[in-house]
């Protein structure tokens, strides 16, 4: 499969690889996909008091475009408010990375991941 330069760049130099402390109230964590399907994405966001995502990180098991999609989304969400981040659509990820049609799934996974991370953060902070 031939990938775009952008996918290759994110694949070879993935941005923001790592893990935050899951239990911190500032952190929202998402784990989407399943090993049996060949894709698992873990995305974490660190949110400040103003509701702005000040940092994000990921770990991904999956093909090149799954890794690239998650790497890209960590860059996209940084500096955005939760409401802005929630609006990110998979289509913009797919377009930016020029994903081949069979790999659109990976961008959907990234969209799911950001929504789930936000939901996780909100859930944690509702209890208080």
């Amino acid at each position: 499969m031939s990938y775009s330069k952008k996918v290759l760049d994110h694949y070879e130099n993935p941005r923001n690889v790592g893990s935050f402390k899951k239990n911190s109230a500032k952190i929202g964590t998402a784990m989407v996909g399943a090993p049996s399907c060949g894709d698992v994405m873990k995305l974490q966001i660190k949110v400040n008091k103003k509701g702005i995502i000040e940092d994000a990180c990921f770990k991904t098991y999956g093909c090149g475009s799954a890794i690239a999609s998650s790497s890209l989304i960590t860059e996209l969400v940084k500096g955005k408010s939760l409401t802005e981040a929630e609006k990110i659509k998979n289509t913009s990820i797919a377009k930016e990375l020029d994903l081949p049609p069979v790999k659109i799934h990976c961008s959907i996974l990234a969209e799911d991941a950001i929504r789930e991370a936000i939901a996780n953060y909100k859930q944690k902070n509702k209890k208080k």
Partner: protein
Amino acid sequence: MKLPIYLDYSATTPVDPLVVKKMLKFLTIDGIFGNSASRSHKFGWEAEEAVNIARSQISNLINCDIREIIFTSGATESNNLAIKGSAIFYKKKGSHIITSSTEHKSVLDSCRYLEEIGYKVTYIKPKSNGIISIKQIQKKLKKNTILVSIMHINNETGVAQNIKKIGNLCFKKKIIFHVDATQSIGKVPFNISKYKIDLMSFSSHKMYGPKGIGCLYVKRKPRVRLSCQIHGGGHERGLRSGTLPVHQIVGMGEACRIAKKVIKKENEKMIYLRNLLWNGIKNIEEVYLNSDLVKGAPHILNVSFNYVEGESLIMSLKELAISSGSACTSSSLEPSYVLKSMGIKDELAHSSIRFSIGRFTTEKNINYAVKLIHNSLKKLRHLSPLWEMFKSGVNLDNVIWNHK
């Protein structure tokens, strides 16, 4: 060292330079370019003679009668002709066929086609080591079984089936036995007279000959009859019409001549290199072998690298030309049906890589590959949430995955 290193010899092999040299003499006006079916002039006679020589070189390699070789465009066509051709010819005798779920797509899809037109097909799942036992076949035999089609060496795993025993069983029951031997002919010494095989497919481009030419061995005594799949001028004893591609046939013949000469030594080299590769990676944590190092093919090593996805590993190993399974299925996103049939978990099937080595692979190539594999795995596992979970003691089988 030339990069990338080619480790996909099961997909195809480069043509041996000696073969190319020979083939060039059979194309142009100064060469032997005639139609081998032209009986009225020297051009035709010369071409016919070249075909005859090639036919005997091919039959020499597997030790059969030259009249038992039918030229086709490759193993896919040979499998089609063998399976559809025999099923249709012997329709009156019965309509049940037995094959295995780990066959090549050209066997499986030929069987699917026959199912559409009224045949019944039993697909046997191998045991976890990839082997189909005689008992499994015996259990499925019916009174109206006309054909058993089992491959010799599997193209993804290199696992070898016991075609001797299966052949004996079929012979006793008077059932036609077809063997897809695409991965074995030219790679392992093979004497067909030692087996009860009625039909056998193989291809030139897997043994350093050109693409687009292959053979179907059709037994003469007792004679196996087939309905032809390509109609026309009655070439190849009426079984496969079409002008013979003399240059390709000559190429395949030459490839077989060379194979006969070097096969034993080459076999030893393959085993040595394959073991060198396996020994270089087997101590990495969570690495699983899907091949059989004792009874399997000398040139194929299939390995699952747990917690790393196969395609991303291939991307990362860009200095190696490798595949995650057969070339014919690599465009689909599904994990290997061959590995899944062996009962291998989806995630390990998603993490599998096939390395296949050949005539031009060197020890240096393998050592370099081992180094690259170690580095890539380190990088990708650092990136893998599954690896992180595994290392922190989470049992991934107990995790409920949030998957839409």
